[in-house]
């Protein structure tokens, strides 16, 4: 009798468990149906000297995906999707970039790259992505990175082509007495691309380029560099694509040897590293890729997100990192317009969509005249300057296209 009771209890228990399990699976299936994930890969440096850019990029991707989810997700053909950011460390070099490309595209099965940082690793990524039909966003600046031969590659921040002419024109108008400029760039694809564009731009405004040099990233001592820059006593020193902290170190050494003139970090992305290292010597530095979060045109959303980022990352956001936010909103707009999550269809829709950029404006894609096809995110060029230790926005030059 006792055995019968035990058996019944066992049977009841098993049945209950099975029902619960079935319900759970069904609930999961229903949940899957109501919101499906779209994996968005990131190939960024998460270690080494550029780690902060990578960490910020990852942070902004997750921020954007959270905001998109909270506003109802991406709705395509009646199905709601949400983005899931998957970040791999490309260590800012081609070899790791190739490994990351294989990991993201082949192992993770990612069909959208929300952002990729570093021209060398991006080129490694592109060699796979275009063949496999994966849509990629990139902050890489090379001319050859996009165009009709690379229909699935889009740039998510301003490049030297968009920044330099307006910025250099602004600076030369502000300093009409300047006649000569010395240029310095890091010795890599980014620096070489920036140098090529800046040399022409300075020539266009009538300044003589008295020297144009390159240095290796990871340089530890900047006195010889500063001595060489100052040897012709130029009116302007343009540090091109030099990262903010290194630019601060160079301006500090220039100050020691007594050089004083117009200072420019064309694609300087932030004041924090510049002022932390350069101190008083960076007073008056102009930048073309930094964002000031203390001006009257800054929105509450920008301030709030920047404050959160500062708490987590230790520095304000910069244009490199903001690109990883904008790319997700661009993707959303293109997916909803094309009503497809197929990368090629989304890529075809991208040039025709507008989306709300982090900068507060409605952004779109252009650049057909420069690149041969509209694959460049058209964003305002924000001219900033360090004044009394703070980054101040002097003006915004909106894209003319």
């Amino acid at each position, binding site marked *: 009798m006792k055995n019968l009771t035990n058996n019944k209890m066992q049977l009841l228990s098993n049945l209950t468990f099975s029902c619960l399990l079935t319900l759970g699976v069904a609930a999961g299936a229903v949940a899957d149906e109501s919101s499906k994930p779209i994996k968005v890969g990131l190939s960024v440096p*998460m*270690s*080494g*000297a550029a*780690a*902060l850019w990578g*960490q910020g990029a990852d942070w902004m991707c997750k921020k954007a995906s959270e905001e998109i989810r909270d506003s109802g997700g991406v709705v395509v053909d009646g199905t709601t999707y949400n983005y899931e950011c998957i970040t791999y460390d490309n260590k800012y070099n081609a070899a790791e970039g190739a490994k990351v490309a294989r990991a993201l595209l082949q192992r993770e099965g990612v069909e959208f790259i929300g952002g990729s940082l570093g021209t060398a690793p991006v080129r490694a990524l592109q060699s796979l992505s275009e063949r496999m039909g994966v849509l990629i966003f990139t902050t890489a600046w090379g001319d050859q990175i996009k165009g009709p031969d690379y229909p699935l590659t889009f740039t998510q921040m301003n490049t030297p082509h968009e920044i330099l002419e307006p910025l250099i024109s602004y600076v030369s108008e502000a300093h009409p007495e300047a006649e000569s400029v010395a240029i310095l760039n890091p*010795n890599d694809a980014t620096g070489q691309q920036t140098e090529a564009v800046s040399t022409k731009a300075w020539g266009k405004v009538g300044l003589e380029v008295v020297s144009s*040099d*390159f*240095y*290796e990233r*990871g*340089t*530890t*001592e900047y*006195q*010889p*560099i500063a*001595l*060489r820059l100052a*040897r012709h006593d130029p009116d302007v020193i343009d540090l091109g694509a030099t990262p*903010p*902290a*290194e630019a*601060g*170190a160079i301006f500090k050494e220039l100050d*020691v*040897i*007594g050089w004083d003139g117009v200072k420019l970090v064309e694609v300087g992305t932030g004041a*924090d*590293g510049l002022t*932390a*290292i350069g*101190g008083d010597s960076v007073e008056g530095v102009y930048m073309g890729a930094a964002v000031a979060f203390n001006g009257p045109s800054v929105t509450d959303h920008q301030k709030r997100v920047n404050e959160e980022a500062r708490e987590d*990352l*230790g*520095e304000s956001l910069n244009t490199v990192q903001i690109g990883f936010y904008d790319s997700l909103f661009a993707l959303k707009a293109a997916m909803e317009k094309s009503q497809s999550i197929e990368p090629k269809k989304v890529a075809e829709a991208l040039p025709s969509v507008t989306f709300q950029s982090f900068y507060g404006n409605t952004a779109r894609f252009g650049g057909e005249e420069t690149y041969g096809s509209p694959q460049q995110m058209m964003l305002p060029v924000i001219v900033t300057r360090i004044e009394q230790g703070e980054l101040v926005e002097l003006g915004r030059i909106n894209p003319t296209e």
Partner: protein
Amino acid sequence: MELVFQLLITTLQISAVYILFSLGLTLIFGVMQIVNFAHGHYFAISALVVVYLMPWLVEAGFPASAAYILSGLIGIAAAVLVGLATYQFGFRHFQRDMVGSFILSVGFVLLFDGLFLESFGGASRSVPSIVEGTVSVFGAAITGQRLLLCFAAILTAFALYLVLMKSKLGSALRAVSIDQEAAMLQGVPYNKIAFSGFLLAAGLAGIAGALIAPVSIVTPAIGADYIVKGFIAVIIGGLGSIPGAVIGALFVAFVEAFGGYYYGASTATLAIFFLVIAFLLFKPKGLFGNG
């Protein structure tokens, strides 16, 4: 002439850091016959502690110089602790094993890269100079802070020289670097000496890190930036040689300063690497080395 003096002053400034850095590297090799790529992280942890702790101490009411000295001492202690940990849990099992210690040190590099980044973040930091102002030497400019760094490098190298030449520890260190077996037969406790030598080297890296913090860009990657130049200085000077480390550092700094000015920074960097290749091919023991 003023330009030449400026370049010579620049050479001395640059070499000061390389000397401090490479002294520890060459000491580890001399005593234990191992190559330690994690040496850069002893340097880095000290610099990171200074840039994080000093502003906090100043805010707490300490005068800047006291805050710097205190944070520097804590930074050096941190470097020694990290050195102790890597020795106890790693290098003591790979003494006189170049390949094994190389692989182990690369592993430590990867571990510390991640740990430091997680702990300190990736933002660049610096601290204000303790000695303000610029001094003119025969028309050549040098900041007070850099001058202090040069004096510190000379003092530290001299102090190390005295320890090695005049103390019992120093005699033992030299003995094991010349011939470990013979030294042990003479009663030199090798394990204890290797341990002391390793900690001394980590301490030297800590001193270098604390001194470089006010004049450099401090990030978790700072050690990686200096380790290459440090090794080049040691290879040129000769692994295991203290005078060699000094001469090697001066040589690297000379090429960087003069080459960087006349031919550009990238060319100077290339030249340094060509020179070290030439040394490895034609004088692999370096100028004064026994490795």
